[in-house]
């Protein structure tokens, strides 16, 4: 075995294949994306009335008040932080994450049902008590945290369970909200693959269009 020849072939083929797969291929794909599909290629960014970015059609946002349809609980609060107090640097890169709690872990039950404690620092409010206080019939997606912590959807059942609460807060008719939910539901691919989901950010934007929340 000739070592120099082996090493030389290994190095040369690495560089040749690197040029093809790591430089030419990504550049061509970037070009295709930016020229033919600029909206999707840049993250499906939604813009407001003045053209300013207000979120992504594919990424959820936190909603907990009665004026909006609430989103799922998130371990990273949907990659958000207060820009004035972002010690963890979340706003520098954006983050994703999950609880990774095992089904047998009692911490999962504590998080769902809450765990009162005299010390408010370690007391857990719990998803179920929060939903019950808000008058929302709990569904599985509203008590379990998502895989990415950025889930843009809630199930149609979870959206319907919130209609009365939002209708009351906004003084709208439940039938108007049902229509908005229908318009902002993403369906299964080909009617077969995946599950239907209501895009919470788009639904709430439509809600604001219908009746601004500060009115």
């Amino acid at each position: 075995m000739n070592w120099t020849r082996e090493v030389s072939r290994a190095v040369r083929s690495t560089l040749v294949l690197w040029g093809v797969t790591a430089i030419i291929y990504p550049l061509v794909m970037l070009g295709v994306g930016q020229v033919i599909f600029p909206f999707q290629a840049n993250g499906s960014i939604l813009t407001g009335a003045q053209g300013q970015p207000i979120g992504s059609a594919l990424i959820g946002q936190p909603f907990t008040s009665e004026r909006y349809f609430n989103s799922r609980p998130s371990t990273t609060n949907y990659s958000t932080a207060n820009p004035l107090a972002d010690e963890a640097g979340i706003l520098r890169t954006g983050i994703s994450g999950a609880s990774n709690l095992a089904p047998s872990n009692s911490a999962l039950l504590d998080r769902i049902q809450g765990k009162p404690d005299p010390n408010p620092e370690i007391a857990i409010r719990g998803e179920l008590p929060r939903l019950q206080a808000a008058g929302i019939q709990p569904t599985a997606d509203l008590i379990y945290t998502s895989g990415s912590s950025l889930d843009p959807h809630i199930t149609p059942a979870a959206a319907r369970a919130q209609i009365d609460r939002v209708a009351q807060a906004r003084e709208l008719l439940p039938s108007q909200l049902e229509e908005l939910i229908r318009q902002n539901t993403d369906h299964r691919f080909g009617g077969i693959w995946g599950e239907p989901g209501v895009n919470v950010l788009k639904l709430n934007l439509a809600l604001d269009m219908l009746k601004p929340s500060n009115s």
Partner: protein
Amino acid sequence: MLQGWIQILLTLLLVVAITPFLGQYIAHIFLGKRTFLDPLMTPLERWLLSCSGVRSPENMTGWQYASALIFSNAVMIIFIFLIFMLQRSLPFNPTQLGAPSWDLALHTAISFVTNTNQQHYSGEVTFSYFSQFAALGFVMFTSAATGIAVAIAFIRGLTGRPLGNFYVDLTQSIMRILLPMSVVGAIIFIAAGIPETLAPPIIVPTLEDPSLSQAIARGPVAHFEIIKELGENGGGFFGINAAHPFENPNGLTNLIQLLLILCIPTSLIYTYGIFANNLKQAWLVYVIPFVVLTGFIAITAIGEYNGNPAVNDLLGVDQAPNLEGKEVRFGWAQSALYAVFTTASMCGAVNSMHDSLMPAGGFATLSNMFLQIVFGGQGTGTAYLFAYLILAVFITGLMVGRTPEFLGRKIEKREVVLASCLILLVHPIAILIPVALTLAIPGIAGMSNPGFHGLSQVVYEYASAAANNGSGFEGLGDATLWWNLSTSFSLLAGRYVPIVALLLLADSMSRKQPVPVTIGTLRTDTGLFIGVTAGVILILGALEFFPVLALGPIAEAFQIMRGIG
């Protein structure tokens, strides 16, 4: 529930439907027959090979093939390790990320070159766009092509042909299979919503509370995502992998990913059938992993559909799906399907968090990685399957008192030693010994869940490394010096020892004088023989790991049935 089963069934049917087409295409490439890309690729490949110093490719022996493979992989490990360490000074680093620790960079380099893509980091906060596309994206192609090359060399040897030339097989796998499919797939992915941009993360005020800002990470994801699934790589651009809406935004992208994850390992069995001129045997062999796959999907899906009994009690219902760590758009069915596909094929991409799967899902995903032949890794899975076939020939030969033969070639001591010791025994060694060490040394395991599930976390991490899968029970605190170095050992042992042994085995099979088929020859293309092979796989591959399964997911299942205390 019925709708979920229809999704699963139709996906499986599509997997089978793709097999003969892709399998035949792969066979034609490596048999030197005409394919539709010839006019473009033949001159291009010749030029690329001559630039690589391979002007007149010679047929390699088993040792030569293995040494070329190891040299080229070693160069790639060093190359991408340097890119990671220098990323602060390299371009396309909009979030100004510094170099990772040396042990994390080393683990990542080894993990990606071995086609594992085990990640002890979160992509968006660790690696620059350049490190992602120029280092990780690069070895996603070469490591997958290395696997295909090994499978082709193995099939050639088994069917009495010379093994071929590693650099030719490597280049052809990329230029004729991986790259063309990636180009088409990446365009579909971009159209479906996966970003492909060099722009930095975007900061927006949230709608409900404008004093709170959201950072939306993005990047050149689509071209990376496609080779990640097609090459059985599985390393996510983002920390949370294909659960991230930018990696897998809808039912269409999820379906494409599922099909890509399994298409090459399934097709290679058909490719073998064409090489051996025995498609009947190929389809019979296909049945073994397919039945196991279907069974694992069923138990995983039932577990996730029925959900967590303790949580169902809180909800006051008998059944609610376990959606912890799952996305609404995938639900229980697509999440369970993805979890089993990705561990079956050694892809390791995830669209739900395996740590939060019910024990049935933990059992299925772990078992997939123990067996390694439920279609298995890119190329290597097919080769392991045939190594089992050779052992089954040997065992049945002993039972009936005949000289064992496979495809008219005698199986002798050397072949059995290679197949049993080096290919099949290295796997338990690379898993169970480091597990025992990690549990024995106090304070290094980093388990995030208590009890039986904690053990499963440790076992899963080493099984994933040794099987070159790359998924994880990600709650585990694995970004430590111990975890980085000890899993690096499992990654290297689980990848290169079996590959060298497979190539030597193929070499010695190809050199044997074929013996004529007589009435006394043990036929290897019958249902009975395939049944025996399945038994051998169960006894050799599964039983050695049964104790850890009993202490991990099985015990956890009983714990949940009794009620979480």
